[in-house]
């Protein structure tokens, strides 16, 4: 009897522990993927844990400022690369400024910054998500960085002209330059060239019709492979639909930054996802996928096309990497030109600082000397200064090169078609109103007008709340 109980317990325990000791469901030959792909606007794939902090002491009499640097690359190398730039600045500046570097993880960054700012404990300068500078500018917490651009112009520097077109305009709010883009975080479609060949697809699609045709061929030729995958259960879902929206000449607002999510181009975009779902071109479980699930499916060969940023994690999957490429930008049926969108990640300074000029000096130096963040730190984004992105280092990384050539020149900022970023964007992105519209479609709802209206109302309310 006791033996029976022991056996019963063992069986029950085995069932109960299933969740605790599971190692994923991929086949034995499938390697586990790298850390999660970007979930929000900017976290890089390996940006989860902070690197060691810099702990040098400030020299006597120095103007001390604190810089919070987000972990935008592998923790093992990125922190050291950022520290090397700070060390150089500390050694080379002739104004006796000492910068203390503090690496800041992306985990809960939103709360970290907001709490620090509202409690009067903001850093002097920081990098951060693309929506942060404008959001904090509304609170009166962002230092105007226009003097840096003025100084560059006075010096005859090429930096302003090397920044992405419209980059500075996008970051301007209420007459102040809230941040300077230091990196571009592009989005695009990574695809399997071998699967395309097997499906008889000679060229990657450039229009939505071609895209649907391409998915149909992939499904017919490779029934066990999901033609298109993306993380529909987190913010990658919103990012995916946003990319298709800009391809169809629309966005979340109109040119006057008023909610505009009920127009025919939005409906066309929702219909496209309806077709993708109804025809089995995306898997039925997409609404539950995190970005990391989509990444895992692509790396394991279960998916043919994957929407993501530069796929830095592919280096751990050489067999998949050698048959991967970046798709050129596509055009929607109502789109005027083929395009994708990009996040522009900025460096900013805060009005709480006691040394605004020291902050501006440091930011200017940072932009001019940021290359080690990539060459030594392994940053997964693309430098915003074009002379940096054409550096030989990037020519040797195929996906960075293809993103630089195919995607970035044909991309618009996330606020498109609005001329500049707007404060409510952080809330709209965080609550993922447009991602929820996508979720509704890929869970079977076909009332496109009602779905669009719900998201439209939510966007309008967020814009109105911030306009108060």
């Amino acid at each position: 009897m006791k033996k029976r109980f022991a056996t019963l317990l063992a069986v029950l325990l085995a069932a109960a522990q299933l969740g605790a000791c599971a190692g994923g469901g991929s086949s034995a030959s499938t390697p586990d993927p790298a850390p999660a792909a970007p979930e929000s606007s900017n976290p890089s794939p390996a940006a989860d844990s902070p690197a060691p902090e810099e702990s040098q002491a400030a020299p006597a009499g120095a103007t001390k400022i604190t810089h919070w640097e987000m972990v935008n690359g592998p923790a093992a190398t990125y922190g050291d690369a950022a520290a090397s730039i700070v060390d150089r600045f500390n050694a080379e500046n002739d104004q006796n400024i000492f910068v203390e570097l503090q690496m800041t993880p992306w985990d809960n960054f939103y709360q970290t910054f907001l709490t620090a700012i509202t409690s009067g404990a903001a850093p002097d300068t920081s990098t951060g998500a693309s929506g942060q500078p404008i959001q904090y500018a509304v609170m009166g917490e962002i230092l105007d960085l226009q003097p840096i651009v003025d100084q560059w112009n006075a010096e005859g520097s090429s930096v302003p002209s090397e920044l992405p077109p419209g980059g500075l305009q996008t970051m301007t709010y209420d007459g102040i330059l809230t941040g300077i883009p230091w990196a571009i975080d592009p989005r695009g479609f990574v695809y399997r060239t071998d699967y395309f060949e097997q499906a008889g697809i000679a060229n990657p699609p450039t229009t939505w019709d071609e895209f649907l045709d391409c998915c149909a061929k992939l499904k017919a030729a490779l029934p066990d492979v999901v033609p298109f995958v993306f993380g529909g259960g987190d913010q990658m879902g919103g990012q995916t639909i946003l990319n298709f929206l800009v391809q169809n000449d629309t966005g979340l607002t109109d040119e006057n930054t008023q909610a505009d999510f009920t127009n025919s181009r939005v409906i066309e975009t929702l219909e496209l996802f309806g077709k993708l779902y109804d025809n089995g071109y995306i898997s039925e479980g997409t609404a539950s996928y995190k970005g990391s699930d989509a990444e895992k499916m692509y790396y394991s060969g279960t998916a043919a096309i994957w929407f993501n940023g530069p796929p830095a994690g592919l280096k751990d999957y050489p067999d998949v990497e050698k048959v991967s490429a970046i798709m050129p930008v596509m055009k929607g049926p109502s789109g005027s030109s083929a395009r994708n969108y990009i996040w522009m990640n900025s460096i900013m300074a805060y009005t709480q600082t006691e040394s605004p000029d020291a902050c501006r000096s440091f930011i200017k130096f940072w932009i001019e000397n940021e290359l080690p963040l990539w060459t030594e730190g392994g940053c997964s984004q693309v430098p915003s200064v074009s002379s940096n992105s054409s550096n030989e280092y990037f020519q040797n990384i195929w996906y960075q090169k293809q993103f630089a050539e195919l995607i970035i020149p044909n991309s618009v900022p996330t606020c498109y078609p609005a001329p500049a970023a707007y404060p409510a964007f952080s809330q709209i992105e965080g609550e993922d109103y447009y991602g929820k519209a996508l979720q509704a479609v890929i869970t079977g709802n076909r009332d496109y007008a009602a779905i669009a209206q719900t998201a439209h109302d939510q966007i309008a309310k967020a814009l109105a709340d911030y306009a108060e």
Partner: protein
Amino acid sequence: MAMSSSKPARKGKKLKNNRLGYAMLVPATLLISLISLYPLLNGIYLSMFDYNLMRPKKRRFVGAGNFIEILTKDSEFYSTLAYSFIYAFFVVLISYIMGLCFALLLNREIKGRGIFRMLILIPWVIPSVVAATNWMWLLNDQLGFINRTLTGMGLIGKPILFLAEATTARVTVIFTGAWKSFPFMMITLLAGLQGISKDLYESAQMDGAGFFRSFYYITMPMLKPVTTISTVLMFIWTFNNFENIYLLTRGGPVDATFVLPILSYYTAFLRSNIGYASAIASIMLVVLMILAMLYMKLLKNRETYS
């Protein structure tokens, strides 16, 4: 005479002992007040303000304004409240049933009982993030172990959409919540079972009672105090739980698994409306207090009646 002289001495000693006891409680009381009472009171205080982090200087007192708006105009609050109750109720129910079954098994004299007790605590002790990540892997429709196994065995024709369809997602998060919570229930019920005298069972056995009659007439009544405390505590914890659902579904798909802690979090940190979020949290507190008091009173009445 001897008695009268020793009484004041004992009283004095007792008073001295009490003073020492109170003095030793002071640091812990201060600490608890600091980390628990202050945030609670501050939250209630903030709930009476129109306080948006985007406009911190425009903070203004609105009294019960936030509460009135939530209770009279906010349909999102009511739909979220409804699922929060359903979620907490079923998590407690399932974890109670599972906990009781395991407690009954582990209360028997079996080989390796200590190891089983230790192993069964794993869901309770592993970090929520680890558990959620593993569940997501297990439940994935394309690569997940569960779907692959069931499909491979021919038990299902197409994958179950555990987290991608509204109804199944609601059920799935309840089960993962119960899986995480049942070890606590098991431990408390096991402690309760061990407090029941074996004589009662022996007497019942001699009177011809079988397992089920003993269970119904001895075990369950004797477990009632433990059951009351553990289910009330578990309901409060589950109702306030944020991470299980947030990590698995973020409240989706299409808000199907949205619960009040997530609504409060979004309101505070994404909508930046600290006052309104505090009001939501305060209402949660009141609702839970009322429920807990009703439940305790109900059980007390039943005990008195019986």
